[in-house]
């Protein structure tokens, strides 16, 4: 292997390694049971599943801007920023799993070949759009509205795979399972049991997950992938704010390209597989901020025009994007517009949405939105499929932030996993004691349950039921019963137990709503009122809330 090939070789190994690591950590963001540990061990996710979010410099910098602090392990981003200062935007070409995915989708049966492909890799002035997107997001973050997660590649990929791709995969697998089961052949079933165990231990989730309006997220994800048919790594070149941020840091890079312009024969072979559209060819300036260090150009150049080295001659290098002051100002104003426009709309603050039930440990709404990047880690780890991406429940500003939909899944009483995987502390780190409460600590409330007496079987139809009371996990139970004789339709008197809610005790976990036998619209339901995180969204008089 020649020296020129070896960097490309290492780059591919690195890409394969990191994309496998990304998906492995994503699949393992789930408590999968296991019978080896002693029961005194708390249930936690042992792997560092937040890793990719913690090295993500955009997550770190934008949350520092919106909250004035660097949360826990987000400090790992320092490593990546320092490495970028040394080596340029190598993250995009060597590590970013979204970038690797784009590269694969660009390379497999490409839409453009030959001269058209070369032309499409010549670079376009619109590539600066990603820098304006970055400015817009960072300005919005100054005003505590954190929107980077909409387009940050790690977040975008994690959210899309978790909420849109995996549930579909799981469903198709179940479909196959049912078909094979219907054969009733012991050998087929034994083989399938093995495949089933493997996929459910390592890839698919324990139960079929379904997410609220996941198809919207799925369509956006497919669109992002299909844009590679238009141009190689379209997302990385035009959209990605993280790439833009790294591009800005790469201006200090010690490592870079040097060109021997006089040797260039204009064969344009370097442009054929150029990933960043950063002008590697001779007789033009190399745009270091666009280059993602794939080294394809150095490998193919027949005349040795292109050389990557430390401390290169920068005579023909552009280290900064060509940004126009007018557009910088405009994107800054757009960033200002996001928080104030969306918060001026009535969904935020002025009118609490009863369906906006946040996960336990979620910060007060304004602080929450200043931290939540909508990565969907909490939705992935939730064992009961309770957490979902919002669509408009939290206003346009809070799109895809987590809400709990009890009808689909309830909050497991002793579980605190969502608070352990949140990379930015939007769901703060809570203790097991805080979750269930004790003599010293009040339990965390996420809402309060209410009965619809017109639908509840004992209340409306003289039919015994109280499945809700059986499942209520608090001590004493938040559902209490009144035994009463009521007339039944046949004229007889029957004794039923009518359920009531004790709002002092109810924590809003929603298991009552989940198990209510009225399938379409449950007779008991939870709304966000009474949630611990809010001072205003309350029903009961509680003087302790106003003590500091």
């Amino acid at each position: 292997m020649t020296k020129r090939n070896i960097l490309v070789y290492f780059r591919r190994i690195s890409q394969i390694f990191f994309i496998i690591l990304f998906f492995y950590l994503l699949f393992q963001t789930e408590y999968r049971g296991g019978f080896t540990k002693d029961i005194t061990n708390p249930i936690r996710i042992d792997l560092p599943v937040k890793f990719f979010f913690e090295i993500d410099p955009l997550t770190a910098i934008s949350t520092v801007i919106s909250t004035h602090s660097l949360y826990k392990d987000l400090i790992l981003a320092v490593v990546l920023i320092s490495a970028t200062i040394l080596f340029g935007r190598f993250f995009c070409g060597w590590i970013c799993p979204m970038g690797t995915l784009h590269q694969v989708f660009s390379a497999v049966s490409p839409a453009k070949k030959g001269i058209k492909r070369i032309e499409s890799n010549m670079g376009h002035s619109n590539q600066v759009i990603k820098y304006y997107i970055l400015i817009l997001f960072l300005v919005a973050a100054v005003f505590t509205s954190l929107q980077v997660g909409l387009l940050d590649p790690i977040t975008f990929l994690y959210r899309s795979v978790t909420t849109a791709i995996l549930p579909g995969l799981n469903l198709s697998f179940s479909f196959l399972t049912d078909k094979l089961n219907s054969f009733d052949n012991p050998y087929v079933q034994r083989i399938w049991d093995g495949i089933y165990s493997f996929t459910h231990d390592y890839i698919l989730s324990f139960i079929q997950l379904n997410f609220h309006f996941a198809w919207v997220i799925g369509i956006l994800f497919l669109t992002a992938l299909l844009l590679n048919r238009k141009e190689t790594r379209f997302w990385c070149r035009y959209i990605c704010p993280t790439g833009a941020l790294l591009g800005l840091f790469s201006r200090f890079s010690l490592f870079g390209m040097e060109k021997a312009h006089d040797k260039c024969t204009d064969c344009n072979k370097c442009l054929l597989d150029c990933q960043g559209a950063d002008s590697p060819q001779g007789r033009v300036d190399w745009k270091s901020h666009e280059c993602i260090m794939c080294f394809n150009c150095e490998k193919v150049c027949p005349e040795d025009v292109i050389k990557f080295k430390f401390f290169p001659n920068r005579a023909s290098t552009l280290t900064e994007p060509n940004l126009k002051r007018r557009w910088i100002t405009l994107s800054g104003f757009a960033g200002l517009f996001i928080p104030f426009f969306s918060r001026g709309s009535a969904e935020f603050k002025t009118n609490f949405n009863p369906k906006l039930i946040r996960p336990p440990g979620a910060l007060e709404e304004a602080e929450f939105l200043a931290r939540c990047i909508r990565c969907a880690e909490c939705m992935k780890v939730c064992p009961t499929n309770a957490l979902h991406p919002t669509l408009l429940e939290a206003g346009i500003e809070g799109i895809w932030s987590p809400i709990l939909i009890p009808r689909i899944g309830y909050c497991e009483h002793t579980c605190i996993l969502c608070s352990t995987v949140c990379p930015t502390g939007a769901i703060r780190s809570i203790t097991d004691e805080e979750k269930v409460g004790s003599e010293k600590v009040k339990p965390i409330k996420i809402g309060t349950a209410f009965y619809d007496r017109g639908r509840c079987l004992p209340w409306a139809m003289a039919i015994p039921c109280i499945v809700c009371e059986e499942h209520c996990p608090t001590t004493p139970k938040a559902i209490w019963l009144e035994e009463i004789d009521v007339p039944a339709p046949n004229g007889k008197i029957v004794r039923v137990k009518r359920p009531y809610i004790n709002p002092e005790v109810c924590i809003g976990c929603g298991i009552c709503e989940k198990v209510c036998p009225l399938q379409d619209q449950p007779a008991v339901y939870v709304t966000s009122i009474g949630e611990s995180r809010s001072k205003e969204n309350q029903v009961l008089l509680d003087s302790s809330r106003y003590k500091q």
Partner: protein
Amino acid sequence: MGDNNIDRREFLKRAAKAGIAIGAVTGGAFLLHNRDAVISAGESIAKVKDFRITGDALPQMAIAKGDSPAKIVKAAVEGMGGMKRFVSRGDIVVIKPNIGWDRVPEQAANTNPEVVAETVRLCYDAGAKKVIVTDMSCNDPRRCFFRSGIGKSAKDAGADVQLPKDYKFKKTAIKGEVLNIWPVYTVILEADKIINIPIAKHHNHSTLTLGMKNWYGLLGGRRKDLHQNIHMSIADLAAFIRPTLTIIDAYRILIKNGPQGGSIRDVRMMNTVAVSTDPVAVDAFAATLFDKKPEEIGYIVEAHKRGLGNINYTELQPVLINI
């Protein structure tokens, strides 16, 4: 005649293609045509065998008291004549504890893990080929199996601990008064013997949840509907599954806030295990631990009426063991 005319060969070719296409569409439609208005399910309905052992010479019920859960279950089974009487060499035994809730053993919401583990060991000592421990939990099964301690203790005793899998349910003929055909966990279709190991608990709706109520945990589907006729549906299940043995764990019992409890203030130590081949009698005995008369509990009365066992458990002359 101009160039527009086609030759005979071309005419026949096109006509044949059109003919085949029409034939295929019409044939397919006739083949798939459903002349009945009702769509048949086309699904096989499974049946469950009777797991009871034959012959009733030896004791039919034993009650053991003592400080160690493992020792009292062992003593009670020995009082019944030993596990060899119930489990034969090469048997596949399914053990059905109550692993319904995400609770630790001290909260007495699930069967005691040591009781389960000891039963697994007794089955293997008696020559069982495989012992399966499973339940269809109410809370997240992964958490229930772990925090109840049953996952680890049964696994350490050599059992095949199975978390419920959604495709392992099969429509099964229950043929009861309220339960006709219901999805049932297929593990019982593979079993030679079944041992029911519930924990005795308070239950606001059915008064107490004991042995017969524990069969809810083998059902899939919309089992939350069963509460509307709880005593009849429990009796239906008792008639549907005739277990080899029922072992009621009353080492700790939950006297309030059942069936999932939560506070150890609601737990009372009884240090008792009751074993019987008669599921009605053993439930009747367990009711007395809560200072209740068996006649107060609807499903025990109903099961007795249907001839599934004897509500007057003293007639079985239970063997009493104190260790």
